[in-house]
């Protein structure tokens, strides 16, 4: 038995697009994986990492085909095997853990039925044994009520728990190879760390070889022995984790590693502004009149500063934006703008007030009218607020395009003809055109690749230095907050848990337990981060994973 479990030689995969054209999404990739080894596949969206992961089982999604190369699994080239043989090894010798557990479970069947199905259908175990094995795995993965949780339906279980059930499902037959496809990406950061630790533990115990696919370098650094960097279906670089993180060879890898450090503000304590641009005073808000989504919120934002509003899902941060813009009048409290109270409802605000508060959205694709050109999109605020038309307006549009580093040729394009980063830049230009005092950024980098997001953050920083605009930066990504925010507001389920200078919030010990837990969960780009957190702050989390000596 050789140590080499999986080898891919010159793998090629093609996809048929919606318009019928084929393009190559994986191009001549070579890959080697030894038994018990964890290989991280890193790349941005479109890099082909999921496709390669699936190809390890000689599987291609609908619309895709493996058109070339060899996939040698334990000595046998899977590309030469027939469908029946492949079907037999899937789930037994190699198993797949998908990104979204909620979508991967059949809503009409109980969890145990689906978890034990693999072992039963392949004839590996009897039904009783399979259930016993499942319960055992549930326990190892620290799921509550391991004896009875299997009898539930998928929608009766939380997201983080479902992800662990899916891991149990993959491990039932004790596969040689595990393919983990962005397993923690869809989870809140505090849940992510729990799932990450327990899965890593289990992999180490069973010595499964694993392909860990993700776009997050910090996360993969905790679990992978080696890392392969992919881009547009091709391999950029490959090597031991330490080397990739600390001393990469390729420029693209260096960009990836340093993307999180794109903007770094000085870590100093910042006093509360005396004449804030926006002051949210004692705001309580609700959507249906019964449940309060925001409870007595007090936040101030000063001229030219960036205040980050952070929280996990359900914290109410987006609702806060709706209150400030006037889309959701608060039940109690009010918002002040430059010292004067703002009308609670959008309809009652003056045009000038509306002009000075602008917003940028998370998904640039739906934030712009697909039938309007860039010039029309940027130009409308110029006409609407300042009455600019004709040549004067065109000239100003070109000026704004220059400010966002885009050539005038883009003026006539439609949003569908722009890349993700360019679309978001146009949205920024649209906000700038109004010459506002404050821009609310609602998860503006969450839908973008990390390198592209880095560019957007740099642009925002530059614009702030030039025009003294304030930013209310809403996000769940604490990694960027650490670097770009002057002050930080931590929210949890409608309350402000803690707020203050960023350096105070991020340097332990913090005042509140939740803040401590939240900050501790943010992965850092070094291989020993997870072990250190478990060792020193393990009390904050609900994990019982063993920490290696």
């Amino acid at each position, binding site marked *: 038995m050789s140590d080499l479990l999986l080898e891919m030689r010159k793998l090629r995969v093609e*996809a048929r*697009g*919606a*318009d019928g054209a084929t393009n190559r*999404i994986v191009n001549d990739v070579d890959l080697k994986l030894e038994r018990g080894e964890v290989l991280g596949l890193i790349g941005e*969206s*479109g*890099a*082909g*990492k*999921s*496709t390669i992961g699936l190809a390890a089982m000689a599987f291609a999604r609908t*619309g895709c085909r493996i058109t070339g190369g060899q996939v040698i699994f334990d000595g046998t080239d899977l590309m030469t095997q027939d469908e029946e043989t492949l079907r037999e090894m899937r789930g037994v010798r190699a198993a797949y853990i998908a990104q979204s557990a909620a979508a991967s479970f059949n809503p009409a069947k109980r969890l145990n039925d689906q978890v034990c199905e693999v072992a039963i259908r392949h004839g590996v175990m009897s039904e009783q044994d399979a259930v016993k094995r499942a319960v055992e795995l549930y326990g190892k993965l620290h799921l509550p009520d391991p004896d009875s949780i299997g009898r539930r339906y998928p929608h009766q279980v939380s997201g983080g728990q479902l992800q662990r059930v899916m891991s149990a499902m993959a491990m039932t037959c004790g596969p040689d190879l595990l393919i983990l496809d962005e397993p923690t990406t869809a989870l809140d950061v505090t849940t992510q760390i729990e799932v990450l630790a327990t899965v890593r533990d289990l992999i180490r115990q069973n010595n499964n070889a694993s392909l860990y696919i993700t776009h997050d370098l910090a996360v993969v650094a905790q679990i992978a022995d080696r890392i392969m960097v992919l881009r547009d279906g091709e391999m950029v670089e490959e090597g031991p984790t330490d080397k990739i993180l600390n001393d990469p060879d390729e420029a*693209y890898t260096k*960009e990836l590693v340093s993307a999180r450090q794109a903007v770094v503000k000085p870590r100093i304590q910042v006093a509360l502004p005396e004449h804030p641009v926006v002051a949210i005073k004692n705001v309580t808000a609700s959507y249906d009149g019964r449940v309060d989504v925001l409870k007595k919120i007090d936040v101030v934002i000063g001229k030219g500063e960036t205040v980050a509003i952070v929280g996990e899902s359900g914290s109410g941060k987006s609702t806060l934006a709706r209150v400030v*813009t*006037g*889309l959701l009048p608060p039940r109690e409290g009010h918002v002040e703008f430059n010292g004067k109270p703002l009308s609670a409802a*959008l309809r009652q*605000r003056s*045009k000038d007030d*509306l002009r000075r508060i602008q*917003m940028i*959205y998370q*998904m640039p*694709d*739906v*934030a*712009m*009218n*697909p*039938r309007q*050109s860039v010039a029309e999109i940027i130009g*409308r*605020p110029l006409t*609407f607020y300042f009455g600019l038309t004709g040549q004067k307006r065109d000239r100003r549009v070109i000026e704004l395009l220059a400010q966002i580093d885009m050539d005038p*040729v*883009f003026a*006539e*394009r*439609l949003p569908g*003809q*722009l*890349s993700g*980063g*360019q679309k978001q830049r146009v949205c920024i230009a*649209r906000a700038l055109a*109004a010459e506002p005092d404050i821009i609310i950024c609602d998860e503006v980098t969450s839908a973008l690749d990390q*390198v*592209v997001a*880095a*560019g957007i953050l740099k642009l925002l920083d530059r614009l702030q230095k030039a025009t003294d605009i304030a930013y209310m930066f809403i996000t769940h990504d604490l990694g960027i907050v650490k670097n770009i925010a002057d002050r930080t507001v931590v929210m949890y389920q409608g309350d402000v848990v803690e707020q203050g200078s960023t350096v105070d919030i991020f340097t332990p010990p913090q005042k509140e337990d939740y803040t401590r837990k939240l900050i501790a969960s943010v992965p850092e780009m070094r291989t020993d981060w997870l072990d250190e957190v478990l060792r020193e702050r393990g009390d904050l989390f609900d994990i019982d994973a063993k920490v290696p000596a």
Partner: protein
Amino acid sequence: MTSIDQDVPPALPRRRFDWRFFVDMPLASKIGMFIILVNLAVVVLGGWLAPNGETEFVGGIWMPPSAEHLFGTDQIGRDILSRIIYGARTSVLIALGATLLSFSMGILMGFSAAVMGGAVDQVFSRIVDALMAIPTLILALVVISVLGSEVYVLILVIAVLDSTRVFRLSRAIAMDVTVMEFVEAARLRGEGLWWLMRREILPNTVMPLIAEFGLRFCFAFLFVAALSFLGLGVQPPHADWGGMVKENYNGLSYGIIASLFPAGAIALLTIGVNLVVDYILARQNRSAAAFEEQEL
């Protein structure tokens, strides 16, 4: 230099209308388009094309197709081909009139309900729900039993009943668009209702509405023909395809196929419109799917 501008397609000259729509059509839809155009030509040119008059007697009863009378003659000796040509005008124009009317009403109500929401939405939706709870044919029969079969009655009945479906669809489409952030962005700017409807929402709903227009036209057209077949639609001696089927129907028992010509014309136009509408809908679904295909 960051990798932002790398994957940009070459700049296309900006066109108001995308001619690829016609170029990409599969053969089946091109045939459908052809059928539609032929019918339109017959409707417009009508009288000049027909070899004989609408009510002119040209020969014996139920004569088989010949060089002189391509489709033969009908149950009282009129040229079938000519009657089909004149009938096209009646059938198509009634259906077109009803559809245009139902569309105007339906879209106005549907968009208003979507954009204004609240009480307006509730009232319109409940009324439409009640109307849609009765099968169209039954309600039409009830009204016709009282008002008779005048052309204006037919158009009005079909228009009112069809507008319910148009209402549902346009409301759904408008709501889909209204929840998109660019509409909210326009709202936040302070834009008024009229601007929102005309500049933000309408341009993005054109394609699905055109497809629906085609479907509603087919329905109205088939419905008028069905009513005429039952003797309750367009009254003789006017030529109307459904009526022609009825008049010649008894011949079928004797093996006379005269009835099949107008019936075939009905089917042909319906198939043609459906083929084109299918293509429009498929194209729409593809661009929505392409958007979701980004995750590799």
